[in-house]
Every structure is written in C-alpha cells, then in structure tokens.
C-alpha cells in the first residue's frame, strides 16, 4: 500500500523538520535547552538543527531551568519566538514559577499589551522503568492552569503541524511529546506514531480533536500514547462485534469539548484513557465535560483507564501493572456491559 510519495517520519524528526522550516523563514525563532545542540536533544527532536543554524540560534543551556525558561519569557515579550526544551516534564518542579506565574500570565497581566509567543517542549511518559522522577505525564497539572495552550501529539503528522502552529502562536504553547512515540531506538517505540509527513510546512489547528476511528457503540477518548492503546483495543473489540470510536484529543488546552460530546452523543458510552494520575486530572475533566452538558446521552456510567494515584514505581512488574494498555480498555468495556 506504500505510495511512491510516502515519507514516513518519526515524531522526533517531524518536530525537527517543522522547527527548521520555521527558522528558515522567521529569524526570531531560536531554540534553547539542555543538550539540544550537538546532541540533538535526548529525544532527538532538535537533531540536525545546530548544523544548519549554528550555536547562536540553537543554544545549549546550563542546567538552569528557572533562568533559561524565565529568560525565554523575557525574550518572547521582546519580539523573539523562543522554542525552549524542558528535558523531562518531571523537572518542572525547579522552574514552575517561570512557567505558570510568568509565561502563562503575562499576556493577561498586561491587558494584552505584551505577547508571550513561546513554545515549551517537554517529554512525557514512562513504561521503560525510569522511576518516579522521569516517567510522569502531568497532563492535568499543566492543563489545569489557565494561560498556556497544551498540545500532545500521537503521531508524526500531527506533531509537525502542531509544532509549526505552536511556533506561530502568539500565546505560550506547552508541547508535550511522549517518549514512547519519539522513535528513539534505544527506548523502543510505538510503530503507529511513525507516519507519512508532507515535506512542505503546514499547521494543525490547536484546540481541535480528531476522530481517528469511527464507531457507534463506545467512544474511547485519549491523547498521545493512549490513542495507540485505544486503537488496539478497538481492533480487539471489533473482533467481538463491538464498534468503538476513538477520539484523539491532540490538544488538551483548548479542549475540543464539542468533538467529545458529539462522539459520546452518538455512541452513548465513554471510556477515557489517561497515562497521567487518575484523580483530579484529564480523565475526570473529559467525563465532566460530557455529563454536565447532557447526561441523558449516556447509556452507561463512564469508565476511566488511568494511572493509579501512586508515585510511579521503578520495578517493571509494578509499573506495567499501573500503565493503561489495550487489555484494560477492553476490560473497561466488559465491566460497562456487566454493570
């Protein structure tokens, strides 16, 4: 089925390509972060950039997140378009003030007088036994706080379009990429994330979800890695005669509630898959978005497949037990039927 013009890229390469294309046409874009230069980023998303743009625009930083993220806010307010990397989302603890008190609020605090056009890229997710300070998703933590847009691509096509859209956005965008989708050989990767990516630049609208598989019995809603688990579960369910629809959120903020509601209105059932901790987070938000709008569309109580409320354990057996997977999604459907 491979078309002759098929050009499959990993998310890492799609992000780097989008960045390079934007840097060619917009001199105000520059990239900074730890080991994003000659090393090309721990997760490959800045690979090749320093060779083309040099160390002035592709800037390795000291391990000083508060300083360089705060500085990016300053530079963004002064007409630059910084793309900044926080190597792992878990490291937000040392620099959150720059993120949620400055980056996220200065447009509002200035009554719109200043803009903060910056992209904060950060890696999320676990599954490779890296312990509780290197495996979190924290979608809910970031999406909870007003003032920053938050995106989380599940495949390379979306990754490129979102990256370009994020760099052109005058608001701060947190770009959460999942390590298990990046296409890094040493880490193992989800094949479904590596897809055809057009050569020319394009944007994907931030704030729009996608129905990536149509179905009529149940809506499975997720983002990032969860979308692939949902698609696998949908295949299993199909073999059992169940037609599952899969919604890829693509953006967490703004959240495309219309697409979610329309899907659930059609199927009458909702399963939310979230690799972030369960309580007070994304899964609850999705369910509330449906139920507070129109509870009558539901034929069954919604279900969530999320990470339990425990720090992420190192031991492989324990971590794998906690992570969402296709079997758990199928089990959620079964429970829904049994209820």
């Amino acid at each position, binding site marked *: 089925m491979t078309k002759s013009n098929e050009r499959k890229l990993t998310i890492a390469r799609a992000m780097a390509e989008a960045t390079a294309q934007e840097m060619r046409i917009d001199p105000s874009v520059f990239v900074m972060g730890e*080991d994003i230069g000659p090393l090309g980023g721990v997760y490959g998303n800045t690979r090749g950039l320093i060779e083309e743009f040099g160390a002035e625009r592709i800037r390795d930083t000291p391990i000083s997140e508060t300083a360089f993220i705060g500085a990016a806010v300053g530079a963004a307010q002064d007409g630059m378009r910084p793309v900044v990397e926080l190597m792992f989302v878990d490291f937000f*603890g040392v620099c959150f003030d720059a993120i949620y008190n400055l980056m996220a609020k200065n447009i509002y605090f200035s009554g719109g007088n200043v803009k903060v056009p910056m992209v904060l890229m950060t890696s999320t997710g676990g599954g*490779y*036994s890296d*312990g509780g300070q290197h495996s979190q998703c924290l979608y809910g933590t970031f999406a909870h706080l007003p003032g920053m847009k938050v995106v989380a691509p599940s495949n390379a096509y979306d990754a490129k379009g979102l990256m370009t859209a994020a760099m052109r956005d005058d608001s701060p965008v947190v770009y959460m990429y999942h390590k298990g989708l990046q296409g890094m050989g040493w880490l193992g990767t989800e094949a479904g994330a590596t897809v055809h990516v057009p050569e020319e630049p394009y944007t994907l609208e931030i704030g729009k979800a996608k129905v990536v598989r149509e179905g009529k019995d149940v809506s499975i809603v997720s983002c990032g890695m969860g979308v692939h688990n949902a698609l696998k579960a949908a295949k299993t369910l199909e073999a059992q005669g169940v037609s599952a629809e899969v919604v890829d959120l693509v953006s967490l903020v703004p959240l495309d509630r219309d697409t979610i509601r329309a899907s659930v209105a059609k199927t009458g059932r909702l399963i939310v898959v979230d690799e972030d901790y369960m*309580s007070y987070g994304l899964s609850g938000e999705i369910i509330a978005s449906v139920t507070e709008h129109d509870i009558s569309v539901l034929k069954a109580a919604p279900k969530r497949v999320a990470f339990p409320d425990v720090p992420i354990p190192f*031991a492989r057996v*324990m971590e794998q037990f906690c992570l969402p997977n296709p079997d758990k999604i199928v089990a959620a459907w079964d429970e829904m039927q049994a209820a």
Partner: protein
Amino acid sequence: MAVKKSSKKPNVSAQELQAYYHDMLLIRRFEEKAGQLYGMGLIGGFCHLYIGQEAVVVGLEAAAKEGDKRVTSYRDHGHMLACGMDPNGVMAELTGRIGGYSKGKGGSMHMFSKEKHFYGGHGIVGAQVPIGAGLAFADKYKGNDNVSFTYFGDGAANQGQVYETFNMAALWKLPVIFVIENNQYAMGTAQARSTSSPDIFTRGAAFGIPGEAVDGMDVLAVKAAGDTAVAHCRAGKGPYILEVKTYRYRGHSMSDPAKYRTREEVQKMREEKDAIEHVRDLLLTGKHATEDDLKAIDKSIKEIVNASAEFAKESPEPALEELWTDIYADDASQTA
C-alpha cells in the same frame, strides 16, 4: 587538569591503603557488573555508572565518622557502597526486586539507608543540595558534631538552589561539606560550554565559604582535603567546598554513546590518571602489599559482586500490593 595538588599527604598505613584499594575496586567491579546486567535487560531505565570517580567517595568516606550524613545525585551506587550499604540490596534495587533497598520502588536513582545515614539518590539535578543543608541543620540543632557530605556535579553547580543553599548554610554556619564532583561533563555538555568560570569552588567566596580544588584521581589527596573540610565543619565554622576534579569513563548513562568526546581523551585518563592503578602502584612500590595480597582482594571482591548479582536475580519481584504501601507514613490510601 590544572589542579593544585594538596601538599600535605597523610602518613598512610598499609592497612589504610589496602582499604582504599578494596573499596574503590569494589565500586568499579560492582558497576561493571551492573553494566552487564543492564546489557542483559535485567536493569531498566537510566543507569548512571560511577566508574572513574571511585577515589572521590572513598577518600571522603575515609574522613568521615559514624553519624555523618551523605546525600548525592542519581550517580549514587558508589556512594552507597562506600558508606557500607549492602551490595546485595543495592544491586537488587537496580533489578527492581523486593530485596532492594527501596523494595523495587525507587530504582537506580532512588535509594536510602537510615542506618548508614545515606539520604538518597536524587534524580532532579541539584535537588539534593538543600537536603544536605537540612541534614546539617538537624545535627547542629541537636548539638552533635556530625557533618553532612553533600555531593553534586559540575552541571548541577549551575542550578539556582545551590546558591540559595550556599547563602543559608554560610549564614547559619551549617556543617555541610559541599562536594562538587567535577567530572568535566554534564551529559553531553563539557564544563566550558556551560559554566562561566572554570573553578567552581571559587563561587563560595561570595558567601564567605572557603573552598579548594582537589585532584579526584588521587585518593590520598581527597582524604587529606576531606580531613581539612571535616575539621572546619566540626569546629563550628560553617560550610566548606571541595571541588574534586575527576572523570567518568563511561557514558552519562547506559544509553549514552558519548560522542561528545574522543576515545583518546578517555583512554588517556584511564592510562595516566586511573585512581585504582595509582593506589595499586603505591601498594606495590611501597611494599605495602604483594601481588598475591592484591589478588586475594580482587578475588574476594569478585565473590561479593557475583553474590550481589545472584541475589539481584533471585530476589522476587515485588508483590503488586506493595504499590499502595509506603505512599504515606501511615499507609493511608485513597479508594478508586
């Protein structure tokens, strides 16, 4: 390495030298074994080996007394072995087993031993530095003369919280020894590319904290500097900074191919500066040990390390019920 060699070398006994040799070699062989187990897929995640830096922690432990505290980063296996933690418990944590120091919940970067006064194993660069000050605060408050060995890297030295801690420690005269393990790289970034001044120890001057650079490939120089720092802290004069110039032979972690430096650079260090070879030389040329004595030490270490690997493979995986224990001290938990 332009390091001012510590002039006063202690009058070292055969027994001490042999102990340094033993402890450094134990760390190296343990780390080599951990590397093998990682290669076999028995250890996951990021695993940061201490190979090359052994003299730092062994020299400083030789200056410590019972009751002193230690805290470090994710490159922590050497520190745990040097302070007397059980190699079995460390290795089994690396393989994520119930017999590991954290029952498999922490992993390579997160282990503790209250008994040995080892307060982690921390994965967030620089985060252990204020903890080290807190350990010292508690000891000072309680009125004993324990000191806190607070280890961090050249890369970590660019984190803001390090300087907040310097100020507080100086202000409150806390007995902290800030040990900067300068192995010249922070992941793929050479020190000169990230750090505005080459001598990190001089940064204490702004806070009135004395400091010195030490040759970290010479265990005797480290021990001597450790003695000076410890004496300063125990006398109630406040913190002290040791910038120990060292080198890691392996990649930053097991997944790092280390393309940012040449093979020759690493080779040169190994051949000309290796800390274990240095002590071996001292032992043999000073007639403090025979080849046979050293062989016996090598053999006993091999046994310890092999036993730890066996233990780490045999120890059972944690039961899933363990997921919900130890979250709170009283095991309160939330129902789903």
